[in-house]
């Protein structure tokens, strides 16, 4: 049976939810509606003249091969970032879970990168991999790899993926570790008594029990890679070389704030808004239901 609490006074509930509603309206509904409105306009940067152009901005976008290419780049980038961040974090979490001595020190060190702002992270990686003065670039050259991410699109993509995932590993690590520690030891011990080795124990007991955490993290990571990584891109590649790392959210920033094409940029953010809405729906509708707790 559900337990229901009913407010006696009529206005109290409204007052109580008002702060949240106001924040949502001011920081989400209002800007989002502005974006919708601007996406059907074409105006000069100063807003002194503006024309209503129906869906011209959207038509321009989808007839531009650069934009379609950007979609493809974003998919490759996002799934790679999520995949890399999840696997490395899981590996680290399993190892940290087993560590007995100075476990706190490991944990603290692994969590640190999360405190680094994306742009700063980008700059750090930039200096490591700078083709002229970077340390990593130097070592790679010693190994016979001709590292030049300013021209080689594949290398540039690898670099931004690593830089973007690096920070997210800390976040995933925290969740995985919490998830691991919530698994009752008796399950694992029982399996061990039945003769299951560590590998088998992990895949048949630990991993399934971690799946709710993992699915939650997949969605969070993809959303992060989609929307939160323009700082990394800006510091490392600026979308280049030759559009190889021009992900959607960077293009929104670049077209809107650098190139001052407000209509086109607004149209792109409307499309991104649809993407994030569908991701959220997928999370709540399908994943949350399918995963066993």
């Amino acid at each position, binding site marked *: 049976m559900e337990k229901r609490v009913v407010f006696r006074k009529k206005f109290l509930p409204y007052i109580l939810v008002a702060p949240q509603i106001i924040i949502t309206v001011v920081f989400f509904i209002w800007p989002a509606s502005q974006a919708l409105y601007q996406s059907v306009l074409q105006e*000069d940067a100063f807003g002194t003249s503006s024309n209503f152009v129906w869906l011209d901005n959207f038509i321009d976008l989808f007839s531009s091969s650069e934009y379609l290419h950007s979609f493809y780049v974003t998919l490759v980038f996002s799934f790679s970032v999520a995949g890399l961040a999840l696997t490395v974090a899981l590996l680290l979490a399993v190892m940290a879970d087993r560590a007995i001595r100075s476990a706190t020190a490991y944990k603290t060190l692994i969590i640190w990168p999360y405190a680094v702002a994306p742009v700063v992270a980008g700059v750090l990686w930039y200096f490591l991999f700078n083709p002229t003065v970077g340390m990593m670039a130097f070592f790679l050259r010693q190994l016979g790899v001709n590292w030049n991410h*300013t021209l080689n699109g594949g290398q540039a993509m690898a670099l931004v993926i690593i830089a973007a995932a690096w920070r997210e590993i800390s976040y995933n690590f925290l969740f995985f570790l919490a998830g691991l520690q919530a698994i009752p030891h008796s399950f694992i011990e029982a399996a061990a008594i039945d003769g299951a080795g560590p590998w088998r124990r992990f895949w048949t007991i630990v991993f399934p029990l971690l799946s709710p955490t993992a699915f939650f993290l997949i969605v969070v990571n993809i959303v992060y890679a989609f929307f939160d990584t323009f700082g990394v891109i800006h510091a490392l590649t600026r979308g280049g070389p030759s559009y190889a790392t021009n992900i959607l959210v960077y293009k929104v920033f*670049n077209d809107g704030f650098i190139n001052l094409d407000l209509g086109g940029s607004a149209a792109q953010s409307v499309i991104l808004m649809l993407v994030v809405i569908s991701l959220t729906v997928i999370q709540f509708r399908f994943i949350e239901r399918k995963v066993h707790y």
Partner: protein
Amino acid sequence: MKHLRNLRIALAVIAIMVMPACALAAPITINWWHAHGGILGEKVNSICEGFNKSQTAYQVVPTYKGSYADTMTAGIAAFRAKNPPHILQVFEVGTATMMAAKGAVKPVYEVMKQSGLPFDPNAYLPTVTGYYTTMDGKMLSMPFNSSTAILYYNIDAFKKAGLDPAKPPKTWPALGEAAKKLVAAGASPVGLSSSWNGWIHLENFGAWHNVPFGTKANGFGGLDARYTFNSPLYVKHIQQLADWQKDKIFIYGGRTDLGNAKFNSGEVALYTASSASYAGFKKTCQFEFGTAMLPYLPDQKGAPQNTIIGGASLWVLNGFKPEEYKGVAAFFNYISSPEVMADWHQFTGYLPITTAAYELTKKQGFYEKNPGTETALLQMILNKPTENSKGIRFGDHAKTRDIMDNEFEAIFAGQKTAKQGLDDAVKAGNELLVKFEKANK
């Protein structure tokens, strides 16, 4: 006790800060948003301080707003929010955008005329102001920091390779030969690199060889101008650079001025860059270097012509009172005065904007004491500017620079030929121009 003392000090500081404001009639505040950080930012502050001390009626308040793009975006956002600064520094590629924003901008010639202060447009260097002037000679914005593209070369490496440091290569074929010798002698791993590829190897290249960069006098003649920088001479030059990569004569240095590290680390011995990079190289290069005019293609008639500028100018925004504009005019006169301008030129490596400042610098013997600092100027005033070398003016040009960068990367990575890359860049750039024309009718 200690708290009490701190409090007293604080009160004293406040009193000192407030007193002059009470004692005098409050001066009119003029806000100036600029994009100079670091040492240049301090220089900007000291220029404003000098102006504020020179008179009591106006107070110029400089505010650093980040990069050029950040500053422009901040200014535009402030204009939309009806709280703009009086003076906004805008980079040269934003010129057409500012011009098209009728009602947002008050042209400088108007500001100066209405102020009643003396203003002689002929006192300014035409090659510098031309970029910011209409076809009929009206000055729209006040050039402040202008530079042009020149060639830097590593004198130590030249000596090592047996090249004469007094005779840097004058033409592109000669540069190719010099680079080969440098690499062969092990004086530098690669010959040449460049910063700002679009600005130097397309925009300046066009002016230097007196070939059009676009139609309608490079865009000065109207919004219906289109790009033409895929004509054969451009293709020839860019293809040459791409081919030179195989023999290590040329290496792509990255976007903006990221390639600077290639020159000051000694990876390349020849480097095309902005004349304003001089001060930075002076500080970071642990070898002797020289400057020379940009190389040209010898079989092209009319080359070398003169090069065009980059950098930024000061735009006056609309919507202020006449007495405030008078303050802006007074400030512009102050920064154009020979002493202030010559000091700015000598300190930063940016071009002087008036003939008087140039003459003063010469008289002070600055160029003899600092060899190489006059190259940019000599190159700018080599010939009377033509339609092809006055400058360029295209809407959304910042975005076209972005397109150029991406196409350069495709060309230098071998994904496209120079012809394909430049054709694609012109096509994408012209689409922007069509859109810009439509939006600004």
